[in-house]
């Protein structure tokens, strides 16, 4: 009886060890995979925020209002087969950021600060509303702006325009992200 019991204990321990090592391997590789995805997301957020700052600077050089400037930005359709989202956020009411995160894993995310103060009256980043912007006469495509865009979408744009507010009697720059597409397309 002694010998079979020893065998059972030994076999169970061996199976346990194999499972534990397998799990540890999975955890390590998953961590590395998440870390790699996070780095890619950081690059994406920095790239989007660079383009936003550039387009805002460009629009601020203009002396007139109403003219919309936009730039189509080329981003990867997915990160290693995983979909991701890009968001413009203003969490503390002071600091505007571009955030990106995997759709399937909220914990894998990255952010890049936009070096502009959201309390500055002259710059307004569109973080939580949606709408359309017509860029030119006769142009069938429009900007569908929104605070969130899906990374896999075609023709993601950053845009900015100068707006004259009659209430505040002041010109401000509005900017945001969106999609460049045809109505219903």
């Amino acid at each position, binding site marked *: 009886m002694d010998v079979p019991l020893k065998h059972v204990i030994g076999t169970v321990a061996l199976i346990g060890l194999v499972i534990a*090592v*397998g799990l*540890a*391997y999975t955890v*390590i*590789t998953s961590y*590395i995979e998440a*870390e*790699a995805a996070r*780095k*890619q997301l*950081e*690059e994406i957020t*920095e*790239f989007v*925020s*660079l383009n936003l*700052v*550039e387009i*805002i*600077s460009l629009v*601020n*050089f203009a*002396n007139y209002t109403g003219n919309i400037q936009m730039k189509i930005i080329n981003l990867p359709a997915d990160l290693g087969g995983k979909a991701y989202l890009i968001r413009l956020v203003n969490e503390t009411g002071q*600091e*505007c*950021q571009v955030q990106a995160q995997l759709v399937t894993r909220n914990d894998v995310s990255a952010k*890049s*600060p*936009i*070096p*502009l*103060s959201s*309390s*500055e009256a*002259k*710059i307004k980043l569109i973080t939580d509303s949606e709408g359309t912007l017509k860029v030119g006469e006769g142009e069938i495509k429009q900007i569908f702006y929104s605070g969130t865009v899906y990374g896999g979408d075609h023709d993601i744009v950053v845009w900015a325009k100068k707006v004259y507010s009659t209430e505040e009697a002041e010109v401000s720059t509005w900017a945001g992200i969106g999609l460049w597409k045809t109505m219903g397309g």
Partner: protein
Amino acid sequence: MLISSSVMIRTFSDPFLNISEKEQLKVAAQKLMTQILLNTGDPPEWGSNVSIHASNLETFGLAKHGETTREAYVLDPDKVLRLTLQDDDPLYIPPSQTVQLLNLGNDYGFAIEFYPALTVNINKTSYEVSVTSEKDGLPIWYAKVYAKMYYYDDGQIKSTPQISTITGTDGKCIFSFGITAEKKILVLVVEYYGIRVTKIVNLSDTDLNKAYLIGNQLYRAPDYNNPVEIMVNKKEGSYVIESVTHFPGKNIEPTTIAVLAVSSSDLLCAYRLPEEEQLMYSSIKGMRSFPFAYSVERSAIILDSAYIVRLYLWRMSF
């Protein structure tokens, strides 16, 4: 085997992660550079308006503000000057405030350097001027050099006629003024294929009374009299160093590069930009760079002179 394969995966992924980190730092540096050089900051006239202090700033940017027109990569000398004032000066913008305005939080540190596009040195005894390239110190041949000396004599500020010459193959040229006055300054304008560099050199053995020009007024100036404004204008393809009498109470011309005056029987020089060759502004005092910092370089114009602006950006945490 499983452990070794885990270690291998970790080891193999490291170079990729490092490259990705560098790429991200590069884009972040480009973004900051765009913001600093192309944005005026808010309020846009924060450089020249002495009632605006660091705590009143909403956004940081060094671009020159214009009500009607604006040029890209033209910086406001008043804004640049305010970065270089003493720490306890009320008009100084502390780097900690700039870090906050640029939304860098505790994640990044940065340093900005401003260099003239051409390095101009002068031997204070022989008046030999050498012009070299900023990067590798190569001599600049055939650069046009305009010079005019201002000196304190008999309670008055006097000046020599303007002299101009061209640098030789060694990038050097010599001036002769024949002035023996003890207190004197030299205004040099160097032009090389459209690149202009202006330099004001104190040729006295001792320090001059120093002040600054902010906006249209003198800042930190002691009592003074007989002030003259020094300007550099382009006439018929050549530069002319001119001086006009400044009437106290009147605004100083925006193109004035310095104001000279008599103060306590000495020469007072109020600079639009600090006289130092190289200006540095860092989030860690005295530190220009940091391990693994990424640097970006752009050309900019400050007070019609060409400068190279270099930004170093680094991560504060790894």
